[in-house]
């Protein structure tokens, strides 16, 4: 190679390093940009047949607080404690978040709390079962993902059983999540 070609190569190499690194930096900044647009949640809670007096729907129906009763040595069932519906076809599941108190003497006042997902055909499509062993709540694994079509309603059926001789006023708070994908 001639001296001039060496010089050309050096110049081109310098420009190349600049162009490639600058392009990579620009692409990286583009990748780091993100746009968040607020839109209505495609899956939300609605009142079910047994929601009256127990359901406190959160703002925009994306949160539901249920105040349920439990009686000693008997299973109390809420067939439609709250319903879940969708505006687009999605997959949902129920998963455990927290249970309080736990590892505490008051836990033994309860036997079980079961959340069942029931479809329009009255078939159970998912179940989240909490039961106690002494002072410990046994927490469940998430249900499998269940398809929910636009406009379809899935009922959340809750069954609660308190222990025989349970203390009046004992309470527990269970937080579960509806995962959507």
């Amino acid at each position, binding site marked *: 190679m001639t001296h001039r070609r060496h010089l050309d190569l050096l110049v*081109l190499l310098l420009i190349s390093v600049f162009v490639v690194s600058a392009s990579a930096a620009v692409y990286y900044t583009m990748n780091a940009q993100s746009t968040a647009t607020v839109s209505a949640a495609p899956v939300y809670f609605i009142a079910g047949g047994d929601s009256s007096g127990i359901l406190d729907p959160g703002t925009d129906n994306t949160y539901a607080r249920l105040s349920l009763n439990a009686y000693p040595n008997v299973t109390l069932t809420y067939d439609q404690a709250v319903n879940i519906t969708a505006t687009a076809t999605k997959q949902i599941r129920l998963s455990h978040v927290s249970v309080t108190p736990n590892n505490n003497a008051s836990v033994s006042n309860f036997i079980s709390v079961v959340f069942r997902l029931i479809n329009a055909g009255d078939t159970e499509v998912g179940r989240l079962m909490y039961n106690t062993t002494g002072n410990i709540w046994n927490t469940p694994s998430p249900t499998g993902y269940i398809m929910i079509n636009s406009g379809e309603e899935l009922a959340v059926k809750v069954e609660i059983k308190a222990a025989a001789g349970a203390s009046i006023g004992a309470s527990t708070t269970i937080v579960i999540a509806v995962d959507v994908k």
Partner: protein
Amino acid sequence: MYDLATELLPEFFLFLGVDFFVALSLLTCIMDYFRRGVPYLYEAAAIFGYVNLLMSREFMSAWGEYMRFSYCFMYLALALANVIGINAYLLVSKNLWSQAKVFASAVTFPTILISAFFFSLYGKDASQLFTAALLSGAMVLGVGIAFLVSPEKIKKHMGRGGE
């Protein structure tokens, strides 16, 4: 199904095209078969791609993803056409069979493979596949026309020079 940690943006094809043009610039500078201006021309093409990348960032929200994909892929197709063109130039015009074979296996084939790989990761729907096929077809047609109207020497080599 496996997902990429970060989804590819359409501008990735622009970035890939810039890299190919830069590589072409350096390769044509090293090889003695090209005029002095050719590497600078490819460097200019790379800078043009970089400017496009900058513009794309500024107008990212205004342009739809399909439009961004179309012009980014067109730029990449142009870069690939040049890689193939250089290969064909070595083979047909310069009659350098061994160099052309080395270039094909070391540069042309890997660049096409890399492009196809990233397109397979990005391509989500039929419209993108259709656009890519259309642009690739146009690129092949462009290269073909370039050969038809190419200098007499190439035509001669192809057996039509004496007509």
